[in-house]
């Protein structure tokens, strides 16, 4: 597609074939520890920071060891759509940076990004009090700088977006932490990264409102036995509460230090 608005490289270019060491990477060593030392139900350490974009109403940056995501929230501002809407509407757009995945992603929006945007919209809408903002729109723009596992990316994006909306001072019922899990030959790997994700038979992403104890969104793919699913949901809600405390600190610490 001769996109005249960008500097053109060659028509077709392909990633080189990287000769890897033949031995298969061991996911689990003998005492059930994963490659980076955490065991099955541990999630990666989260670094969360707000107030990153000076011109946005609210913004947040989340980093899970290798996954890096930035989110900017603009609004509430005038709705452009012609229909009169009694309550505010939400518009989410997620974008992978071209260098974020092992294989270079095209700069224009592809179907996966559209699907992820819709999932984030569904996860956040129950938690935001849109009825207080008639005729205005809240725009959430998320850019994924580095992707280490698409499911955990989606979960991190939901957490980050929820913190950014709170940072924008928009009234919310509750913060929405989200967490992902992968089923790899019968075991539940919490918050799996790219290599583990390649070997998963199914995955689960759960967004949860801890203080209201309500689940806003569940997405499960791949076939999994029933008891494994319920156990995974159990583990996800626990780690969501852990994430919840990190979100609260990221919002309150800057204010307390300032006072």
């Amino acid at each position: 597609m001769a996109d005249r608005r960008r500097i053109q490289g060659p028509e077709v270019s392909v990633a080189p074939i990287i000769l890897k060491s033949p031995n298969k990477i061991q996911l689990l060593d003998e005492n059930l520890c994963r490659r980076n030392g955490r065991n099955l139900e541990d999630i990666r350490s989260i670094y969360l920071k707000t107030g990153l974009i000076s011109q946005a109403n609210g913004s947040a940056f989340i980093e899970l060891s290798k996954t890096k995501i930035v989110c900017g929230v603009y609004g509430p501002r005038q709705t452009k759509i012609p229909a009169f809407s009694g309550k505010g509407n939400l518009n989410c757009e997620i974008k992978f940076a071209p260098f974020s995945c092992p294989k270079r992603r095209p700069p224009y929006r592809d179907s996966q990004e559209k699907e992820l945007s819709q999932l984030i919209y569904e996860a956040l809408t129950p938690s935001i009090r849109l009825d207080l903002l008639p005729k205005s729109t809240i725009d959430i723009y998320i850019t994924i700088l580095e992707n280490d596992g698409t499911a955990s990316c989606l979960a991190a994006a939901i957490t980050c977006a929820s913190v950014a909306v709170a940072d924008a001072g928009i009234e919310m019922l509750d913060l929405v932490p989200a967490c992902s899990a992968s089923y790899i030959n019968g075991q539940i790997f919490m918050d799996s990264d790219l290599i583990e994700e390649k070997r998963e038979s199914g995955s689960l992403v759960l967004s949860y409102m801890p203080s209201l104890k309500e689940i806003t969104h569940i997405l499960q793919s791949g076939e999994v036995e029933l008891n494994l699913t319920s156990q995974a949901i159990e583990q996800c809600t626990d780690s969501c509460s852990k994430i919840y405390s990190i979100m609260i600190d990221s919002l309150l610490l800057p204010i307390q230090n300032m006072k």
Partner: protein
Amino acid sequence: MSTQTYEAETFRKLQPQEYLRKFLLKEVRPDGRELKQFRQTTVNLGCISTTNGSSLVRIGNTTVVCGIKAEVSVPKQTSTKEGYLVPNVELSPMCSPKFKPGPPSEHAQVLSENINRLLKSASILDLNTLCIHEGSAVWVLYADIVCVNYDGNVFDACVIGLITALSNVKLPKATFAEEEGLVKATEELLIPLNLSRLPYPATFSIFDGQYLLVDPTEVEESVAHEVITIICDEAGQICTVWKVGGISCTPKHLEKCISIARERYIEIAAIVENEEKSNNLI
């Protein structure tokens, strides 16, 4: 102004020129800097692991991430040994309310074009060194610069980001298998690029024809439309002079800008220096 007194914020919204003029009368700028002072600049290299080379540059609040990914392609008919270097700037609606979703805005296109011209004309990277097998396989370096936070003077951040990312690139050793026509690369041996020149930029803007503001923020950029950008390299030579908008620029202004740009070069080189030192320590 009428007898009404406004809060600073409302005053800035209603009368932006007046607001800036009142600051400049006292030789100070809205964010507290003097006229000649650059914002605090930080660089950190290799922050994105899925790239062959990457860098994050912050000039004050303006934050830019440059990632370079290498792929393989067939060279052009007319220049069979030349690889490709494809820079592109992405100003997403996330970094500032000015930008709308959709294809790149005019501002993004002009940034990409000026960076492309700089790379070609200042011969920073000899494209023939990207050749794997003449006539059939060459490296293509896609340099994508994503703006995370837009607070004025994005061009400087993009150029510094690109140059530091290029110096951070490590290309795997590639061999071209004749028969299947495939390129195989081994990760053990990583070769850095040799850059023949490391140009760094400095941007100024002139307000009301008299004040020369260094490294303008978004507030100043939206009001002072006369922009001068000077890029010089380590030998003190100049790679680019770009001056647009406004009729009050005289050779005296240009001389002052060039001398400040040279000082700025030393400043940036020092910052990148200790970043590289601290980088290969760990």
